[in-house]
């Protein structure tokens, strides 16, 4: 029996700190190196944020990479449902984080990988879970 790979939404901070190889959060880079052993969903809000962080040439490289691996890299250009953004805002998320949570829900993703501590602490008792890159790596290790 084969186990389906985990399907995670990687928050922008995981991409940015991972690509920077930031020594304060090394597991972001470690997690990016494991893409393929889990699949990734990239929603519109994350795409827009990456567009600001990367140059035109860099984002073009990024899109090329994604398009080569549609089995485990999933792009979504759909806006998050506004009423679900409000739902998460009413439960303590800042608006931007609420957009990410609403995207995850709309795309059927149960787990968001993020190093955003406020986000990690806010979303409780909800159908979504927010896990750190370290926790995500530990989860992958348990599946081996």
């Amino acid at each position, binding site marked *: 029996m084969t186990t389906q790979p985990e399907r995670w939404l990687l928050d*922008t*901070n995981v991409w*940015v*700190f*991972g*690509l*920077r*190889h*930031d020594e*304060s*959060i090394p597991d972001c*880079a470690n997690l*990016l*190196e494991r*893409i*393929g*052993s889990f699949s990734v969903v990239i929603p519109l*809000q994350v795409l*827009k*944020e990456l567009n*600001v*962080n*990367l*140059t035109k*040439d*860099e984002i073009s*490289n*990024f899109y*090329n*990479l994604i398009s*080569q*691996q549609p*089995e485990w*890299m999933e792009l979504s250009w759909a*806006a*998050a449902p*506004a009423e679900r*953004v*409000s739902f998460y805002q009413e439960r303590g998320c*800042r*608006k*931007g*984080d*609420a*957009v990410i949570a609403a995207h995850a829900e709309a795309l059927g993703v149960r787990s968001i990988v993020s190093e955003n501590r406020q986000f990690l602490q806010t979303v409780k008792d909800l159908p979504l879970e927010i896990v750190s890159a370290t926790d995500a790596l530990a989860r992958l290790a348990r599946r081996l």
Partner: protein
Amino acid sequence: MQSIDDLARKITSLDPAEQQALIDKVAQLNFQKGLHDLAEKYRSRLASEGRLNIPAEQVWAELHRIRQEIAAHDYPA
């Protein structure tokens, strides 16, 4: 070093499940190489702008600002 033909013969002698696992592994390694190249390009650009070694807190502040600006624009209510 093996020729491409030798390598192809060796691969086609594998059973289908092994072939698929090999194809998946090659795809993953190609992706990782591309991601590594992108990270190098990004880091090199940040270094040239003097922004590679800024404190993580500064990166966080910028990420928060970008997030809130985009969300406020897209969801003005």
